[in-house]
């Protein structure tokens, strides 16, 4: 039987996944912009990348949600089409809000903090691309009830 986590566990993993991503960006920004020569930030940054990858597998791959949101419409059934459409619409709204928050935060920091210089770093660009691709799948992991592939007819109702 293909082992998948419960919806509750998946929600936790989604939070850990994005928190690690945010932490990685903060560490990278501090190290490159403020030239902080402290190995703690390197370790936290690298650790965050590893945590992001580790939590990605059970949430997106094992549940099949990544494949579902990136599949052709013909290969999905009517309920999958419906929930995929909803998750893509929601993730579009979330992604727009997140981008606007980043732009607003940049404008406010530049206005009120002297010497602040905001740049779109490679990790930030990569993180935004990852976010755009993984948000629909994360929303499905957040909202969907997940079941393992049944072996017998006496599957729990």
């Amino acid at each position, binding site marked *: 039987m293909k082992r998948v986590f419960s919806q509750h566990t998946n929600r936790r993993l989604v939070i850990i996944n994005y928190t690690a991503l945010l932490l990685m960006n903060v560490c990278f920004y501090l190290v490159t912009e403020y030239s902080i020569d402290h190995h703690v930030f390197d370790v936290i940054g690298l650790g965050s990348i590893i945590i992001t990858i580790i939590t990605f597998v059970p949430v997106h791959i094992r549940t099949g949600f990544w494949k579902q949101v990136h599949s052709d419409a013909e290969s999905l*059934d*009517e309920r999958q089409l419906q929930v995929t459409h909803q998750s893509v619409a929601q993730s579009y709204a979330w992604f727009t809000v997140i981008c606007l928050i980043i732009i607003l935060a940049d404008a406010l920091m530049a206005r009120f903090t002297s010497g602040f210089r905001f740049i779109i770093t490679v990790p930030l660009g990569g993180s935004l691309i990852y976010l755009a691709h993984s948000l629909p799948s994360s929303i499905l992991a957040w909202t969907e009830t997940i*079941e393992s592939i049944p*072996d017998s*007819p006496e*599957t729990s109702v």
Partner: protein
Amino acid sequence: MKARKIYNRISVLRQERGISRKELADAVGINFQTVGYLERQEYNPSLDLAFRISEFFGFSVEFVFSVAPMRPLSEVIHQRNGGTGEGNPRV
């Protein structure tokens, strides 16, 4: 517009036939997770899917699906037999 809840007997019929959710899903061309949603009555099927499931079990759509809560099959059979207690051991 909020859709009405559609009740069904899929779970009972499936277990009675001894088939898994995966087998039923493959037979009617849907994902096995969708069968779970249908059985828990968390998803209302389209008319086409309702017909496909009913045809698979060999019953009419109104026997498998209903807008009112389903009565237990034992109760339906008992009433059809005139409520005579047929099937009970005779004293």
